């Protein structure tokens, strides 16, 4: 078997976000001039990118299944279905039975009304702590627990789409998305797997999730601004589902599948985010892949969150690429989609692969000086992931020959 056979191809993309559903809607949105979709009122002072209106039943056909899921699982199960369909594998039970899955997940929605009841009755002057037992007993729904468990997004994907080769769920906010991409790349490259489904889902339209990130004051709580205009001031959450079908070239060719692009390298690391550490991480990771990079035709799909010092350091790292003779065209996809934690890097990878297969750069995602209109044809795109708290990583995606391309 030649090393080309172990190339990691992206053969299916499933995207669902504030911009629409599916690859066509997303390509049209990222090349158009409509800008982001934002809801500044419902969760004020926090703007969010709300999910487009979607008929979940087109991918999740059984009403019983839909009833068992809260929004984040619906978003994820739906976009996983889009990716499988896009790869031409819907209903191919034989292949889905060998498909290895890694889902990057947080947890699901809480029942805000119930939480409020417990808080009201167990704090303040008339507090009765024992009362919480009674409220929880009568108000907690068993189905809600299953909708909250991190690994039950994967469980639902198995049930609805019949993906059963293996099923793993990674946790840890942005780290989870990055680690799932890196692990899938390593497993396919090394021959441990031929066919994988990876991705994640985020529902931004929930106050319990906003609360988790506002504990550390990580949210942008003002009129909407795009990522770099926020100058590290906070992140804006977006509802996003992003899944990809990754496949060894040999496996894809054998079934006649075409690729959007191939993955050339994935690196990851962590630091404690002392001054300059995130930049150092990115630089040393970049050096390990620099030999594979085409200096002229490189694009950057930045996953910057808009939050914290590391965000500012990522911009320094990217700006400094000029010094090394690289001339990247940059797009910061959080400005259009919002930040989606576990789903964020998979979404960036999807947009990078789409751009390579279309042979053009998307229109600028924001009006800052960092993004310019670009005419060239990208041959490679570097996707970055700098977590709002922890984890730094890079993925290099390369276009494929026209006879292999979607």
């Amino acid at each position, binding site marked *: 078997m030649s090393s080309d056979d172990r190339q990691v191809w992206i053969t299916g993309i499933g995207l669902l976000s504030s911009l629409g559903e599916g690859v066509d809607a997303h390509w049209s949105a990222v090349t158009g001039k409509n800008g982001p979709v934002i809801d500044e009122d419902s969760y004020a002072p926090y703007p969010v990118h709300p999910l487009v209106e979607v008929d979940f039943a087109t991918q999740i056909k059984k009403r019983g299944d839909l009833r068992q899921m809260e929004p984040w699982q619906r978003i994820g199960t739906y976009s996983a279905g889009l990716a499988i369909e896009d790869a031409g594998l819907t209903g191919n039970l034989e292949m889905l039975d060998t498909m290895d899955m890694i889902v990057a997940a947080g*947890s699901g929605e809480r029942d805000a009304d119930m*939480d409020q009841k417990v808080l009201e009755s167990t704090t303040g002057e008339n507090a009765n702590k024992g009362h919480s037992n009674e409220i929880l*007993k009568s108000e*907690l729904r068993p189905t809600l627990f299953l909708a909250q*468990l991190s*690994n039950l997004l*994967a469980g639902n994907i198995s049930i609805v789409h019949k993906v059963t080769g*293996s099923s*793993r769920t990674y946790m840890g906010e942005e780290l989870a998305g990055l680690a799932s991409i890196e692990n899938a790349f390593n497993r396919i490259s090394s021959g441990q797997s031929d066919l994988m489904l990876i991705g994640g889902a985020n529902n931004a339209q929930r106050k319990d999730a906003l609360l988790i990130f506002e504990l550390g004051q990580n949210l942008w709580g003002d009129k909407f601004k795009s990522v770099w205009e926020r100058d590290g001031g906070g992140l804006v959450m977006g509802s996003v589902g992003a899944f990809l079908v990754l496949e060894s070239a040999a496996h894809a060719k054998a079934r006649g599948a075409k690729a959007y692009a191939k993955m050339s390298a994935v690196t990851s690391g962590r630091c404690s985010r002392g001054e300059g550490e995130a930049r150092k991480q990115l630089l040393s990771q970049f050096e390990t892949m620099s030999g594979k990079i085409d200096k002229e035709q490189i694009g950057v799909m930045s996953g910057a969150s808009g939050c914290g010092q590391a965000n500012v350091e990522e911009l320094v790292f990217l700006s400094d690429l000029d010094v090394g003779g690289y001339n990247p065209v940059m797009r910061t996809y959080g400005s259009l989609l919002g930040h989606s934690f576990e789903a964020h890097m998979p979404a960036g990878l999807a947009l990078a692969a789409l751009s390579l297969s279309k042979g053009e750069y998307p229109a600028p995602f924001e009006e800052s000086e960092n993004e310019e209109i670009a005419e060239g044809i990208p041959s490679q795109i570097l996707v970055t992931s700098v977590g709002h708290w*922890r984890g730094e990583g890079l993925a290099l995606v390369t276009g494929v020959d026209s006879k292999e391309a979607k």
Partner: protein
Amino acid sequence: MSNSNTDHKGRSVVVVTGMGVVTSLGQGQQDNWRDLIAGKSGIRHIKRFSTEGLRTTIAGCVDFLDVDPYSAPALSIAMAESAASEAIEQADIGKKGDFPGPLFLATPPTELEWPQRREIYTEEGADSSLEGYDRLLSACRAEKHEEMQRLFQFASVGEHLADKYGTKGLPISLSTACASGGTAIQLGVEAIGRGDTDTALCVGTDGTVNLEALVRFSLLSALSTRNNPPEGAMASFSKERDGFVMAEGAACLVLESYESAKARGANILGVLAGCGEHADAFHRTRTSPDGMPMIRTISKALVDAGLKPEEIGYVNAHGTSTPENDKMEYFSLKQAFGDVMETTPISSNKSMIGHTLSAAGAVEAVFSLMTMQNGMIPPTINYNTPDPDMGKIDAVPNKAREADVSAVISNSFGFGGQNVSVVYGREPK
């Protein structure tokens, strides 16, 4: 080929060179093993919070570590540190705070708990004209909650461990529900098999016995309600079984390529002979009625290990004591093993330590390896009335048994169709 560095599939042989464990029975391999083979139970009435009005009032809590205030991540971190320190010391690997490989961590999903929500809700900065989450958010805008932020991210437990032990690369936090511990070990085996690393730190930890978690499992009718006496509640494989008992614990394995372990003269505690996995698409909490995903998981593990069923001397069962699990697990074993299963000893560590959830696969890995080391099979306690639906079974009832065991299969099954089986061997072939 004797003592080869590669296995029957040409992959690096992976061995265990360090182990650590904490359960409701105590801290460390020695104390746990002593109680386990004595058939002692760690299940008690819950003291951590009021169980007034609840159907289940018992659990296997780890209350002897200094964790104040309790929160699931804080206890999960403390137990994981205890287990990892023990394992790394035994393996005698790396320098202090500089473990030479990655971390694979099975850890429970994280969320804010009631004491923290109440604390934020009543803070000075909270805008009392607002209700519910709006008030909580107002308190967070008024003041940064850095400690809570560090504790209640999904990456928190992994981050703490990576910091303390200096593991390399991204710490991988994973959940496959009650199969998580098995998955963490699988990921370590795969990483060494790819040649990504010579060694890996595989940890499972779970400290989630809190009010809401108890109520949630109770509402799913998953928990035993045989509260009195607590030690008698877990009745794995017996007719009386009525559900599991939630429990806490952690375990850690230092995995190493055989080649690297030999090169540094490490003491080898056992071998990771093979892993099997197959997901179930039938139902969120139930197993396919035909058992196929479990059967395939078990069979894949045997094939991966290159072993025949008769070469497995002991089955370390998932054995949760729920009517469904024990029936389906034994049925699937019989399908995968054939008639030889009827005479293969099978026992449930959970009958004594309860169900340690995310940690279970790791905790039971340690006990599987100790079973081979000590030539002694821990019993299934509270096994008094056989379940006639199961047919012939050797559940090692109530009393530990001496046995020369050279290979063990350990099962872990979880909600969401998660199935993992791992085969452990006593020494490299």
